[in-house]
């Protein structure tokens, strides 16, 4: 669904951002892109969305070469959430904002109205509010809601949970999970390892523009070398089970760890 082949990208003035990067994400995957601040994650997201084009190498999204495809064409297939929601909010009311994304996709009026009303209800928004009177967390949820409403085949989410409180975070992640279960491919950039553990199956770790690890999220969390290099730290329960050593290799959640403890006690 998404393929990068030997991709390089350089910003003027700051040197390399992405260096010889190759990976592939298949239809229906839920992958997380991790890495330190400045690692190049947002740059990768923009490369996939066609907002920037590779200096060398190729980026293919849903079979389309991003260098040969109009950004507007890609936007019909890919739902893209900017790291800063204010970069995408552009209408005067929440209702218009939600409708706008659907109009771009060429849905008919009745379908648009139906989806807008459903999204307003699901997310608990007041349709008449001006987007810029909303708090940062609410603007973040609005930006995400307008992507989710469009039900894209591919979702690229750049830090979808920043600025959200715990409850909102769970609510939007459940919505993303729902679309993924219906077949959407998700690539999510995220600094919250607990969210990654709960929702993503695969993790790709980027450091200084290069891919340094790629595999099952749970396994990556246990690879001290990759984690440290990319300024990451595993979720709390994984940290704990790593310290406890043998017999706790599979314990990443509270329930799993408690089970492992009970089992060990019985064995003794």
């Amino acid at each position, binding site marked *: 669904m998404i393929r990068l082949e030997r991709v390089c990208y350089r910003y003027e003035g700051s040197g390399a951002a992405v260096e010889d990067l190759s990976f592939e994400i298949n239809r229906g995957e839920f992958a997380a892109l991790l890495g330190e*601040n400045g690692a190049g994650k947002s740059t990768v997201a923009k490369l996939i969305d066609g907002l920037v084009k590779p200096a060398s190498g190729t980026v293919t999204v849903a079979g389309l070469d991003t260098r040969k495809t109009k950004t507007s064409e890609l936007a019909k297939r890919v739902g893209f959430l900017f790291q800063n929601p204010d970069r995408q909010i552009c209408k005067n009311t929440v209702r218009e904002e939600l409708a706008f994304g659907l109009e771009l996709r060429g849905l008919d009026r009745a379908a648009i109205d139906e989806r807008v009303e459903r999204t307003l209800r699901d997310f608990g928004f007041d349709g008449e509010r001006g987007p810029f009177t909303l708090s940062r967390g609410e603007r973040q949820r609005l930006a995400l809601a307008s992507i989710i409403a469009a039900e894209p085949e591919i979702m690229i989410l750049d830090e979808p949970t920043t600025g959200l*409180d*715990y409850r909102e975070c769970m609510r939007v992640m459940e919505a993303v999970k729902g679309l993924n279960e219906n077949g959407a491919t998700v690539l999510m950039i995220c*600094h919250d390892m607990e969210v990654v553990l709960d929702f993503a199956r695969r993790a790709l770790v980027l450091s200084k523009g290069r891919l340094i690890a790629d595999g099952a999220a749970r396994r990556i969390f246990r690879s001290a070398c990759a984690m440290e290099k990319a*300024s990451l730290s595993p979720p*709390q329960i994984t940290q704990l089970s790593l310290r*406890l050593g043998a017999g706790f290799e599979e314990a990443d959640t*509270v329930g799993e760890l408690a089970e492992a*403890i009970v089992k060990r006690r019985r064995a*003794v």
Partner: protein
Amino acid sequence: MISVKDLTFVYEGARKAALSGVSMEIRQGGFVGVIGPSGAGKTTLLSCMNGIIPHHFKGDYYGSVKICGKDTFDCSLTELSLVAGTVFQDVDGMLINATVEDEVLYGLENFGLPKAEIAARLEEVLEEVGIAGLRRRSISTLSGGQKQKVAIAAVLALRPQILLLDEPTGELDPASSRLVFSLLKRLNRERGITVVAVEQKIMLLSEFASELAVMSEGRLEFFGPVREVLRHSEELEKIGVNCPRVVALSRELEKRGLTAGTLCVSVDEAEAEVRRVLEG
């Protein structure tokens, strides 16, 4: 140091009070973590501490806030900013200079410090926050997390007695988030700086803060030592505040009759407790 008494505030034109009847005493050298769902009034509370309310935002204001014994009503914003430095939630709105270096220098020069002192502080703070390599970069070309670090550095450089931070680690990677909180803790311990940090990452607060303030719908629901507040984990969850997973683990172990309800708030504590259980 900071004394909030019966504070109620309604933004001009708003239907609901953003703060209702909030009272809290923060001693000098305190390290208070503020948490709560969005819209709970956390930013409004900080705005009352740095004087933005009532000096900038208008509305109905009842009660009082005193900083070092002086009512914020009677101080100018400039006076207050010398005592309390704020890292705002909206970093993009806060950064106004072209380069990283200029941004940090801007505040220092406005403070009228000697040249040598300015240079020394600039070096120190860039190093501490881990952005020395970005010094001459243009701010508009930084990644989200890098910008947030610049905003933090610019405020730390001024060495205010009180630091108010509004979700300062939202876009930081895990290591940088810890770095910032370790730095705050050090300033707090070594220089007695009072820290009030709004933060959604409960794990950071339970490890670094001494006290926790939990807000919900404009009210201060809990305020006390971190451990005491985390004992109310079930009530916290109802408000919409999650607990660190080691706290959930403590609860689970108790439920299974393995412990007598020891509350672990950090991975270190949880490790010691689990080892005790295993040695049984």
